[in-house]
């Protein structure tokens, strides 16, 4: 009996080890499967985009179909303006909300705000587009850069808030106490000591928010709309890189597709570079605690 048990045990152990190996390999395969699309998309975009990326792309206006050349300068400038507009109010609100949530953490109100921020980050961007449409486009009776910027600003808030909050939490409590003990008021402590200590972290948050907003398409479709001409007036429709990509991508013309790939490559590079910067900055600073 005992011997049989032992035999059974041995056979069983072999089976368990086989299962162990199979499952662990499956996990490794899963990781590979998740990384492959990234590498594929990245290199495909680079391959298709680099060939049509030239000096004109950054300096010339789009040409109508049929004419060679042309670029996306209006869309590039448009994206910069839209992000600037959005950042103008999205970033301060985001940072201040982050300060509030972190420095007054624990209170009911700060929990509510935190929850609302999370909810806001989960709202589909197209819904934000509808919101901006109703609030700005309808009363103005016109698609405008203002509406697009507003939508992007709202989308930036949750990202900035979350990172500000996380970075402020990493500032040691003793630093705050030291400042408060010197008789410096709470508000000044936050502003001069805590915020300054966390500033590089917060900047990375802002960068991430900008990178995210730069690629947003859905909320711009019916706010800033699009524009094939040069325009910097805020109450007029304005071009942007992602919307331009979208319009080119669903067009039937190869020449436009190539332009779109070039735009896509620019966007993907921005995302890649920003993430790399963020990674390097946060690793240097918080390698111990993160």
């Amino acid at each position: 009996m005992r011997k049989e048990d032992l035999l059974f045990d041995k056979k069983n152990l072999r089976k368990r080890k086989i299962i162990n190996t199979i499952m662990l390999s499956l996990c490794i395969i899963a990781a590979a499967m998740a990384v492959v699309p990234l590498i594929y998309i990245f290199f495909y975009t680079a391959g298709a985009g680099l060939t049509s990326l030239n000096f004109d792309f950054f300096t010339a206006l789009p040409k109508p179909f049929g004419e060679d050349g042309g670029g996306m300068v209006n869309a590039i400038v448009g994206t910069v303006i839209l992000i600037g507009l959005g950042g103008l109010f999205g970033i301060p609100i985001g940072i201040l909300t982050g300060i509030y949530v972190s420095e007054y953490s624990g209170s009911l109100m700060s929990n509510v705000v935190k929850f609302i921020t999370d909810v806001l980050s989960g709202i589909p961007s197209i819904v934000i587009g509808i919101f901006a449409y109703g609030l700005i486009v309808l009363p103005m009776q016109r698609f405008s850069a203002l509406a697009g910027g507003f939508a992007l600003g709202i989308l930036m808030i949750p990202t900035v808030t979350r990172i500000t909050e996380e970075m402020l939490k990493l500032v040691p409590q003793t630093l705050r106490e030291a400042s408060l003990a010197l008789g410096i008021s709470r508000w000044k402590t936050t502003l001069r000591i805590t915020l300054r200590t966390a500033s590089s972290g917060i900047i990375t948050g802002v960068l991430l928010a900008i990178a995210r907003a730069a690629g947003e398409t859905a909320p711009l479709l019916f706010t800033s709309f699009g524009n094939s001409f040069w325009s910097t007036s805020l109450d007029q429709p304005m071009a942007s890189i992602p919307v331009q990509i979208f319009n080119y991508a669903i067009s039937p013309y190869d020449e436009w597709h190539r332009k779109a790939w070039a735009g896509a490559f620019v966007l993907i590079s921005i995302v890649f570079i920003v993430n790399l910067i963020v990674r390097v900055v946060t690793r240097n600073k918080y390698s111990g605690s993160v």
Partner: protein
Amino acid sequence: MFFALSIIFVVLLIIYEMFIDSSQSREKFGFGFIFSSDWEPVKEEFGALTFIYGTVVSSLIALAIALPISIGVAVFLSEIAGKTVGTSIGFLIEILAAIPSIIYGFWGIFVLAPYMRESFQPFLQNYLGFIPLFQGTPFGFGMMTAGIILAIMITPIISSITRDVLKAIPVSQREAAYALGATKWEAIKMALLNAKSGILGATVLGLGRAVGETMAVTMVIGNRAQIKTSLFEPAYSMASVIANEFAEASGQMHISSLIEVGLILFGVTFIINSLARFLIFSVTRKADMK
């Protein structure tokens, strides 16, 4: 404080705004809006059923593919890979999450959809064609392609949160399993079991993202308002109908109905996200207390 409150104000304003702007459609169609599959701008007959169906099915396909892969990735990152490999692959996956959806959609049009049409779907039809899900003409653009692209997009989200949740499980749990003679996989299984509410939260969060995703889906789902059993058939989702029709809507009732679709989308994502945050919060708080 003021700014923190403004964020609450913004979210309330979004709800109010969409509620008011959709009043025309809500008054005319009532709850029938959700159950009607008519969508005829010319006759001013609107119902959202086909879009709800498209959103739900494409998101479920995405989850079915993304969940097992994400868990595999998370296990790989937190339990198998060494520190260097783990952080670098973790970084790649974070970038995957940051790539603008327009680029996924673009890639979907030119790479994924043709591949689906020419290789993958005919292959499925050959071997699994007896299942109604895999019958009909392989269009390439349709429900299945949308689901797959969504799966690629939500895998990074689910896997990075699952990884964090797994890392929050105390080492003592793993030691306990090992000390009883568990194999590595058996110990991991125990940790996964422990983390299940956190993993559920991550899944729900991924679902929220899939439901609200606009551009990528719009570009590959085929945009045809129909309910078909076959996953090869084109379909339409809530977010894509708004993206496609909003800017050129033909009259007040059309706009109002689109906004109502947006309102439903908002409501659904709101519930999904609150649920997800609650689940993740309950796990990480427990870990904090330890």
